[in-house]
């Protein structure tokens, strides 16, 4: 087989037969096969893998683009999905920086070869720290869910307790991950929400708090989009039981919303995706954790924490790992939880995003989201029998629209929207059956008035239409 092969593969320089021979000579081996003599014969795989033969770069390009063209993206259709992954604008400079070959292909080099990477991540930590107004931020974790789980595990180690209280309105997707990361050691207990406002029910919280409570975790804005206003009361209650308060936040809200540190959070976590990451079908998620500069907390981080230090040359800075010996890199199972490759590049990107927007940009971002989502709620709420928002709280970016009284299911509404080139809100009817036919819509700074009006118009049409399902299938079959 190798005899037939004339050309070296572009990715593998030493497929050149003459070079192979020269190297084998040097080693003192006759064939490459010999070098595999450490693997017992019976384990040698004798068959050919059923994988199609190599494509040239052009063929590959045409083939993959052909597959990708089967997707319809959020530039082609108008998108109102959020629910943990949000459609924000990504400034071109963010892409330029994270596509630079240097950052893209670097990994775990030491401070002297990878000074720029250390500085960029230290700066990310520092910028994020300003946004949440706390002194310590880690190198990014996988996503919000895992950051939350890790925060809970940190709280459990600090308090020595094994129970965490979470709001019932938490994202089911996120909850699955938290539960998996907490089990078997930590039990998740749920706090009720107030029927009308969606806010945490303080009585229920008080009932469930105990000396077993490691932490109270809640989110702001909540998964269902409303702003939880009782943060200060919740953290006080938690504190009265010596439990730790953990708040998950959407950082895109922090230009206008108070950061959790201002209402008593000990640990803040959340997702960086809104800060310059494309949605990437969910591949843009990236978690962060922040705390005060308190040894009790710092020593429980599993993550790497980059610190700044002077070098032997006056005025020059270098960077390094703070308290490296707490990590599982250093201590294996004795380390704090575990650490590894997570989402460093998204941390660098979030830093770029925050540098570009600055305080004014973050304020304007929040303001514009507040304005546009209020406008959308108002317009949707004007459609007869549509309730927007389902909850009587102030919302940020996302809100629940109740179609229960329209005679249409969310599924039907979404199919109608899809047929008209719109991705409707996230269907909540399975995750929160108690809400009936509710849908979670997301409005960000990217939505123009015309976009919102088009959504409203199309929903109105959908609800007005008395056409049977069959008829609709007929008309829109081609979509």
């Amino acid at each position, binding site marked *: 087989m190798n005899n037939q092969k004339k050309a070296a593969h572009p990715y593998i320089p030493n497929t050149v037969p003459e070079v192979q021979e020269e190297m084998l000579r040097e080693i003192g081996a006759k064939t490459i096969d010999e070098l595999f003599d450490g693997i017992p014969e019976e384990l040698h795989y004798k068959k050919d893998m059923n994988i199609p033969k190599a494509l040239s770069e052009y063929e590959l390009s045409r083939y993959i683009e052909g597959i990708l063209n089967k997707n319809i993206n959020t530039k082609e259709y108008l998108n109102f999905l959020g629910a943990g992954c949000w459609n924000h604008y990504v400034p071109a400079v963010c892409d330029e920086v994270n596509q630079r070959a240097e950052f893209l292909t670097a990994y775990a080099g030491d401070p002297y070869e990878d000074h720029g990477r250390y500085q960029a991540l230290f700066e990310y930590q520092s910028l994020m720290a300003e946004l949440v107004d706390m*002194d310590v931020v880690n190198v990014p974790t996988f996503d919000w869910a895992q950051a939350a789980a890790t925060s809970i595990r940190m709280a459990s180690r600090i308090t020595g307790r094994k129970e965490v209280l979470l709001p019932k309105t938490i994202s089911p997707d996120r909850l699955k991950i938290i539960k998996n990361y907490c089990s078997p050691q930590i039990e998740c207990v749920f706090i009720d929400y107030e029927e009308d406002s969606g806010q945490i029910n303080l009585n229920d919280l008080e009932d469930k708090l105990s000396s077993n409570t490691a932490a109270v975790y809640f989110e702001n804005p909540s998964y269902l989009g409303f702003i939880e206003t009782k943060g200060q009361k919740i953290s006080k209650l938690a504190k009265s039981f010596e439990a730790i308060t953990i708040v998950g936040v959407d950082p895109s809200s922090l230009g206008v919303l108070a950061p959790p540190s201002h209402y008593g959070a000990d640990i803040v976590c959340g997702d960086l995706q809104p800060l310059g990451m494309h*949605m990437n079908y969910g591949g843009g998620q990236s978690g962060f954790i922040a705390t005060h500069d308190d040894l009790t907390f710092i020593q429980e981080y599993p993550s790497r924490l980059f610190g700044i230090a002077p070098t032997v040359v006056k005025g020059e800075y270098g960077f390094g790992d703070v308290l490296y010996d707490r990590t599982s890199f250093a201590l294996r*199972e004795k380390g704090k939880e575990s650490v590894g490759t997570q989402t460093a590049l998204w941390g660098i990107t979030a830093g770029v995003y925050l540098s570009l927007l600055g305080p004014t940009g973050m304020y304007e971002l929040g303001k514009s989201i507040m304005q546009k989502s209020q406008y959308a709620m108002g317009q949707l709420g004007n459609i007869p029998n549509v309730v927007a928002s389902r909850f009587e709280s102030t919302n940020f970016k996302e809100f629940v629209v109740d179609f229960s009284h329209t005679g249409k299911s969310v599924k039907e509404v979404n199919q109608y929207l899809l047929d008209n080139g719109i991705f409707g809100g996230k269907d909540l009817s399975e995750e929160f059956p108690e809400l009936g036919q509710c849908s979670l819509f997301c409005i960000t700074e990217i939505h123009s008035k015309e976009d919102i009006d088009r959504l409203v118009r199309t929903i109105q049409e959908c609800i007005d239409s008395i056409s049977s399902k069959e008829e609709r299938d007929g008309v829109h079959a081609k979509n």
Partner: protein
Amino acid sequence: WDEPIIFELHKIGERGVTLPATEEEITNNVGDGVSAIPLEMLRKTKPNLPEISQNRVLRHYLRLSQETLGAAFNVEIGQGTCTMKYSPKINEAFASSPKMSELHPLQDESTVQGMLEVMYKLDLCMREISGMDYFTFQPGSGTQSLFTMASIVRAYHEANGEGEQRDEIITTIFSHPSQAATAAVKGYKIITLYPDKDGFPDIEKLKAAVSERTAGFVVANPEDTGIYNPRIKEFTKIVHDAGGICNYDQANANGLLGITRAKEAGFDMCFFNLHKTFSTPHACGGPATGALGVVDKLMEFMPGPLVEKQGEKYILNDRLKHSIGKVRSFQGVPQTVLRAYAWIRALGAEGLKDVARVAVLNNNYLYHKILNIHGADAPYIKGKRLEQVRYSWEKLTKDTGVTTEDISHRMADFAHHYWSSHHPFVVPEPFTLEPTESLSKADLDEYIASLTHIANEAYTNPEIVQNAPHNSTIHRVDEQDYFENPEKWCITWRSYLKKTNKTETINS
């Protein structure tokens, strides 16, 4: 570059980007939006972020990028165990296509058929490579894959009513620290096996370790020494006989593609790092993907949803009976799945085998050459190395006082990576080199020449090594105190300003 910290570039009033204006009609309709926020939740003071024009932000990060030695820029073999290989540029074009990057993870399945097709087809390729029956690409890295495997082990025994009883997981010291750490996160006691004098995991120790408490066994093979455990099939049998599950950490799989498979070695689960063996870029440490495969009987324990083919359509199946739930949001990191699939298709079955063959050839060439360097050695059995080798400067350090860390700093002067993290230091003064298939003989010769040069320096002029770097972006950092002392460490710039001011106040 002598590039300041970004906060030092702050100039009040500058801005890096403008956001879309809210239309006047909306403002007329709802006001400023912000007034609706309950007072207690309104941010009172703006975050103390710097204000910088776009040109300067870009210049800052471009300069930092140039101060980062990406794999694309050097003879990248010094980060052994990391499998730093060439990440083809064409795959970046795919990953940054709006047809990939602008997809929302909750879109209707009918609108993401292309994406699901890629995930499904990579699954099929992975099955061929490993012999496993189903793959998920949800884990975001090797560590998260290990955590997922530990979760599945627990779910499996729980489903069999042995969840409480089986509380031990066995691993080896030359496997990645995350194997032990993630199993511990999942509540397991860890039993760590040390190698025999030749560097092989000791089968007698395994026999002694297994019991009715054994939940599972997790191991890399080859381990970070580059040595393949030839009795692996006996190992998995012993664990199976004791009722345990066998998990294969395939982080070191680069010498194995098309050569040998997880299934035939008796494993129940395995994972590959797409960012290592399958060439997706390391991205300074993620986002990445662990491709986790299981045998049939473990399928129902996998995290959901899985991509399946139904007639001509691809669907997401989230109805796995005993699913552990999830480990990462949505469907993991699909852009990495796309890159890995493209890489496989650029190579084909034959090319994948060439990857393994050349990676092993390169490594053995390097091994042969390094052993000729004065002061260098590779502990354990002679030969039998696959894709990497853990070496030792023990002799050189004894002879000259120059340590592996000194050499690391000096290698920076030659623009080479030379990774210093090999905890635990079982091998004294270790260094681990993994050349992969991406590098040519000339590249290897260049790296060898630098190492040889430095070893000579160590014997003739040790100070030059011990005071390195001389020629890097920065000079030697005052490490110990600033990174271990809570009074002095500064994990953020605001923290640095506070602590420096305090120090200055005290000093003045």
